[in-house]
């Protein structure tokens, strides 16, 4: 049997089949899983907060990626890119939650648009868990944000005529946590399940943001008089 197996590895069409199967098994066992989070996000059903808000998505936010290199642990490595989905999600949520929203990309935008404050979201941490690690048949994603509201003037570098986040002093800064999970399902791959858990985590972030925004210290006073300097 072993001899026939070795023979098949050396020559003939079955050798190609064997090598292909072996290579595929090896690739599956050792390769990393890459997930680019993709989903559709509903527009929230809310009465808009009567303020005019600028929004800055930093390059780190737009390109956020969770990388877990598990080669040292002998496990599959994971890369979960959430940046595109983050921008898509917050770009759907914010214009529905606030009366007027402008996406700020440059110094000129800050000069052009008259906004009450600028919102700067930052992803502080993202973690994941799959059934292999937890023995619970759910895939999980945790997200922790650092959210900031800042006066527009503080983002202007008037000397260089650029948009700068270096010296900003937010009048409101708060953490926001979000959690998403999805159960194991027949014929569902690990990658699909992690994607779905990430989409659920983003939805949870929106639910948490909407239900807690008015109670954030610094925000309450601002909402009473948004046009007055903080």
């Amino acid at each position, binding site marked *: 049997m072993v001899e*026939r197996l070795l023979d098949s590895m050396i020559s003939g069409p079955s050798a190609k089949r*064997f090598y292909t199967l072996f290579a595929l098994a090896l690739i599956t066992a050792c390769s990393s899983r890459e997930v680019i989070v993709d989903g559709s996000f509903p*527009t929230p059903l809310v*009465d808009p907060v009567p303020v005019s808000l600028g929004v800055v998505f930093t390059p780190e936010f737009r390109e956020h990626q969770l990388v877990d290199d598990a080669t040292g642990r002998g496990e599959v490595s994971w890369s979960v890119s959430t940046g595109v989905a983050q921008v898509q999600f917050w770009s759907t949520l914010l214009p529905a939650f606030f009366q007027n929203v402008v996406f700020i990309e440059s110094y000129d935008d800050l000069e052009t648009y008259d906004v009450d404050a600028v919102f700067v979201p930052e992803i502080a941490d993202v973690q994941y868990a799959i059934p292999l690690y937890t023995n*619970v*048949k759910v895939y999980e994603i945790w997200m922790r944000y650092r959210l900031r509201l800042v006066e527009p003037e503080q983002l202007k570098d008037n000397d260089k005529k650029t948009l700068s986040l270096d010296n900003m002093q937010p009048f409101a800064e708060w953490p926001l946590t979000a959690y998403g999970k999805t159960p194991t399902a027949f014929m569902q791959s690990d990658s699909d399940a992690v994607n779905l858990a990430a989409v659920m985590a983003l*939805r949870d972030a929106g*639910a948490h943001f909407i*239900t807690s925004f008015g109670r954030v210290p610094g925000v309450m006073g601002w909402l009473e008089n948004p046009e007055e300097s903080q």
Partner: protein
Amino acid sequence: MLGGCVTASVDEMTFDAPTAGMRDGSLVVLGRRHAPDYDTEPDFIDCIGGHISRGSESIYVIPEQQFVDSLYPWFEPRTAPLSIESVGRLMVLPTVAGKLQELNVSYMVWIDGRTQETNSSGSMTCGVGPTGAGCFGFGTWGTESEYEATIWNFADGAEVGKMSALTSGQSYMPAVVVPIPIIAPVQDTACESLGTQLLQYFSAGS
């Protein structure tokens, strides 16, 4: 595919069934997703909704995802009302009250539960060679489904019933070259049992 045996038990405690039928309103079947270690499976919720829709043309069941999306973020795991009294707090929001009126929701059915494997034993060996592939051995595993449905009447603002279904079964997989799965349709039986009970409740009077 062959089927294994399943045992099922259903409990029901309901009152105030819709005596005029469901012609004037719609219902939505939703899964509970706030437990830390499990989620009520979305496909089980679809199965229950489909069972009720197919059973009576006069009952319109709003698909779960459509309902949750149209009322986002008020029916997410973090925000979903856990009692009919909490719905009153949601109805204070004009946009939510308006949307529920637009959807014409008369009843809301919450399903909480899961299907899980209870035990497994046996062993199977499979091999691949240049002349072919094959398996030899025997495996068996048990599966249990436990679901509870809670019915809320929107018009009366009251909980009007609870139903539960508990099903279990044993699946087998003997293999002599080719594995032959004999699967016990445990979750399907739970869906049929609970779906039939709900259908009877909502069809009362029609």
